[in-house]
């Protein structure tokens, strides 16, 4: 057999192979310095990969900043490490390509720029903006004078279609860009809200008693009798859920793809005065008569967050879709104030100010322009200043203002992908131009204002296929695909160390992770350090130094005999000596920690035995 192996020189006995690899490596390195005769011509020695490659233009570029790629050097398993490094390289590449793609996007944001300090943007009137905008954009400034009480409006996700509803039952949907009317209904009863479903082909109206769903041509398709006296409607487009809240204070979710009433939550706070959704995590924000704002998901029977926001009824709530995906929320109350909240930290508003003319309507645009409509005017504020924390209750610098003589203002809606704000009021609707409010580049796979019939159908089917299950609605959207939390299971060794008594689970029946822990093979070095990723600031150097120091500290004491014994001992056996040694080491560690604490606090550490008299001591 050995003769056979010897003949086939590719195959060598395992014992010799290691050395052979080393020698060939050194040989190849020496060869690269001076190619000699036959070896230099023999391309089969090296892989063909070096000779053949894809064109440079088609290749995915290597990430320019190598430090962005995580190294995972703490992972011993080579296969796993390679896979993780490959993934992180891929992520870094994707980030760079994203930056490239941003450079390529063509659309330009609208803007309003002043040349010197003395000029103010809020002095610019709508007529001036419209005249200088010209062309298509000037069409955005419109006035619809309508009878039938205060009006509300709602846009589709692509901003192409508009639905309006008057208090006394006048409903209409139309393509406002082409100027074609889809349908016009006179419902002859009180209507409180309107919303499109997944696209312009269906819309839902909150009427006097129930919710009704109509199709594009105004044919009544459904009457949702389980939603009684609805006041507000919201449609969650990625979950296909129609959420409504009624006078009785019940929040109800209806699945519009299956028709099933998913869940109803009793708010116990009476008729809510306002409702909105966070477009980035599908959480419903409700504002109530007693001044609280509650955040709801279909999965919790109680609010995820309850917040006392105002001293009167909460008139309007809106979530900022622009900044970090729903981080800021604006509320306005019956007490005449407008507040901006940071949704990660509810301790007090980021900013608050009072408005004239009672309770206001608020809404954010896709690029973070806040519109506040109160009294006889609509004011807008722009992004960086509105998010900056501010102590005194002054109004932030005004961006634009527009007088509306027809009180009350009942709805404010920014048109997606346009610089247009549509204001619903007692005398109909008026649209004004707010330069810089809209996102200039749309994505055809998500929402396309210019989509044709075929792509609308395609998107509808695709949307149904990708419908997200309602149990994935949470405050933190990133939990899907993240690691499962560690179990609370206590192993034998941990229990003996901590003196707890757990039932004797045999080693073979422990879960794999626990078995690894017992045998000392578990990889517990994994540290997900987010600060490492974002550590591009100047203290990176310091951090690295401290990391080295940490390593050093970790290395110290490695040579101690007990620990060495334990290291050699990590076989799959629960060894009483090993357990005892672990316990002893644990004690030593505890003592060291105490000593360190004592050194910090300056008190001398005295070792004190517990005494029977301790119970008579005065408690400190």
């Amino acid at each position, binding site marked *: 057999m050995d003769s056979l192996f010897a003949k*086939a020189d590719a195959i060598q006995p395992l014992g010799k192979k290691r050395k052979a690899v080393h020698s060939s490596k050194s040989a190849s390195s020496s060869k690269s310095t001076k190619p000699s005769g036959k070896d230099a011509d023999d391309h089969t020695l090296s892989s063909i990969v070096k000779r053949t490659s894809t064109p440079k233009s088609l290749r995915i570029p290597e990430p320019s900043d190598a430090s962005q790629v995580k190294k995972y050097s703490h992972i011993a398993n080579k296969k796993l490490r390679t896979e993780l490094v490959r993934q992180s390289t891929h992520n870094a590449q994707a980030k760079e390509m994203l930056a490239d793609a941003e450079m390529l996007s063509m659309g330009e944001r609208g803007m309003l720029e002043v040349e010197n300090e003395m000029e103010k943007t809020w002095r610019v009137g709508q007529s001036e903006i419209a005249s200088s905008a010209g062309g*298509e954009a000037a069409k955005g400034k419109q006035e619809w004078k309508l009878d039938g009480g205060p009006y509300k409006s709602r846009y589709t996700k692509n901003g192409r279609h508009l639905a309006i509803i008057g208090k006394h039952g006048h409903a209409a949907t139309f393509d406002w860009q082409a100027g074609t009317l889809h349908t016009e209904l006179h419902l002859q009863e009180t209507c409180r809200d309107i919303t499109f479903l997944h696209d312009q082909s269906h819309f839902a109206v909150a009427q006097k008693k129930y919710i009704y769903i109509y199709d594009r041509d105004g044919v009544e398709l459904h009457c949702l009798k389980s939603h009684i006296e609805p006041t507000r409607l919201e449609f969650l487009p990625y979950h296909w859920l129609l959420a409504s809240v009624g006078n009785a204070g019940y929040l109800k979710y209806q699945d519009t793809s299956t028709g099933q009433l998913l869940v109803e939550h009793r708010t116990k706070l009476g008729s809510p005065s306002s409702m909105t959704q966070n477009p980035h995590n599908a959480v419903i924000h409700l504002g109530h008569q007693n001044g609280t704002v509650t955040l709801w998901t279909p999965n919790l029977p109680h609010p995820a967050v309850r917040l006392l926001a105002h001293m009167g009824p909460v008139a309007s709530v809106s979530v900022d879709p622009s900044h970090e995906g729903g981080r800021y929320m604006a509320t306005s109350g019956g007490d005449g104030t407008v507040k901006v909240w940071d949704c990660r930290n509810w301790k007090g508003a980021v900013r608050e100010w009072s408005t004239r003319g009672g309770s206001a309507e608020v809404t954010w645009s896709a690029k973070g322009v806040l519109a506040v409509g109160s009294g006889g005017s609509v004011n807008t504020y722009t992004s960086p200043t509105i998010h900056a924390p501010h102590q005194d209750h002054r109004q932030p610098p005004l961006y634009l203002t527009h007088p509306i003589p027809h009180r009350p203002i009942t709805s404010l809606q920014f048109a997606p992908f346009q610089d247009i704000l549509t204001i619903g009021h007692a005398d109909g609707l008026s649209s004004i131009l707010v330069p810089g409010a809209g996102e200039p580049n749309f994505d055809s796979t998500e929402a396309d204002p210019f989509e044709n019939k075929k792509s609308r159908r395609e998107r509808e089917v695709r949307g149904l296929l990708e419908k997200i299950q309602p149990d994935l609605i949470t405050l933190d959207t990133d939990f899907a695909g993240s690691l*499962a939390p560690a179990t609370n299971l206590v192993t034998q060794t941990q229990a003996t160390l901590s003196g707890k008594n757990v039932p004797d689970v045999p080693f073979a029946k422990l879960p794999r992770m626990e078995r690894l822990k017992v045998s000392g093979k578990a990889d517990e070095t994994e540290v997900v350090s987010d600060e490492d990723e974002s550590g591009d600031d100047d203290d990176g150097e310091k951090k690295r130094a401290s990391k080295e120091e940490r390593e050093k500290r970790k290395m110290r004491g490695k040579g101690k005999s007990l620990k060495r014994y334990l290291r050699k001992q990590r076989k799959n056996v629960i060894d009483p000596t090993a357990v005892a040694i672990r316990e002893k080491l644990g004690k030593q560690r505890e003592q060291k920690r105490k000593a360190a604490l004592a050194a910090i606090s300056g008190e001398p550490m005295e070792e004190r035995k517990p005494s029977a008299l301790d119970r008579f001591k005065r408690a400190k």
Partner: protein
Amino acid sequence: MVKISVLQHVPSAHLPTRPGDPTPTSRNLDPLLHPFSRARERTRALNAVKMERMFARPFVASLEGHVDAIECMRMKPGSLSEVVSGSWDGEIIKHDLSTRTKGLTISQAHKGKVSGITYGQNSENVLSCGVDRNVKLWDSEGKALETFTGKTAFNAIDHHFTDPIFATASNTVQIWDETKSTALLNLAHSATTETITSLKFHHSEPSLLGSIGSSRTFTLYDIRSSSPIERQIVMAFQNTAIHFSPLLPTQLLLPSEDHNLYTFDLRYLKAPTEIYKGHVASATCAAYSPTGLEFVSGSWDRTIKIWNVKDAGGPSSNISGGKSRDTYHTKRMQRITAVCFTPDAQHILSASDDGNMRIWKADASKKQGIVTARERAAIEYRKALIGRWKGDREVGKVERRRFLPKSVYQAGKLKRTMVDARKEKEDRRRKHTREGEGKKVAERKKVVVTEQA
């Protein structure tokens, strides 16, 4: 002077320039415009994995013809369609896979069962051996060209890859020349009483021959040498066949009667490189894929399992080494006696006790026939999605779950209980033995008993 610009979309830029043109699309990769991207991707992955299971219809066809149980089967070298099989009633049938028709039939080729079959040097000719102590060479018309007579019943036959010689297994291993009526060589020990049940020539080292003996041994021979037995290993259980990997010349595969399959490295025969567990009855046969990245095994429990070879460098699979990638079964299929891959690695053939030969797809959910570029892109995207989300609980559950026949499922459950109980007992026993005595022996170290000199 205030500079004012208002966002406007020019409709002409977003509409097709001429009728019939595709509508221009625009992309914006800003994550704010793509909310719930992770949750949506997970939904897509879940749909993809469900679709994969939905399309998993591995059974292609059944080839009928044999009246009795099929014992052996062989694909014609260099052909994608011809397969020959021998059955227990002594019948030999050639089948054409592409037309699924029966070709040549030789009834009563042997008295009693046909125990082994292979192709001759001229691949039109078929060599068969039987329990009637004969080896016969058949031409393409079904005429017996030659008959080689042995002293005892033959159990297996294999032809050399290049030379016109073949090897037979009976109570000894014999090497024959196609043109001579007596054996050239007698390889086994004259002293042993064991019966040789299976043998195989090596692909890349053609003078190397492996055989399985009935006393739990497997043996490697060099047919050129004067003392031909190179290595003889005694294992804890009886093996049923031996196979050499077409990709890694040093790897050999042994299906065993202890329900497992083992791969060994030829250079280190003290322990297997991997144990493949999953069958609930004796693994009766196995075959490598021509790519060498996977192999198929048939079992007494009426199932076929497909396995990825560990460390062969195949497409990174989500199944860790030692677990089967897929299990095939059907209601009427009985105990499997022979399996093989077609040379294009796309299909698997299985022969079973019920006298039928079955054609299976090697990849259960793969679409057969022409796939358009768009469809292929979609399939690849779905594959990548599954690969990425296989760690997710729901996705992984759908991907891993296979519904088995009730008998197999129950037997598996019982087996698991028994193995667990044995392990637990071992643990407890070790706990109560004196320190240092009850050392744990790795599973792999238990497989090989000894090597015979």
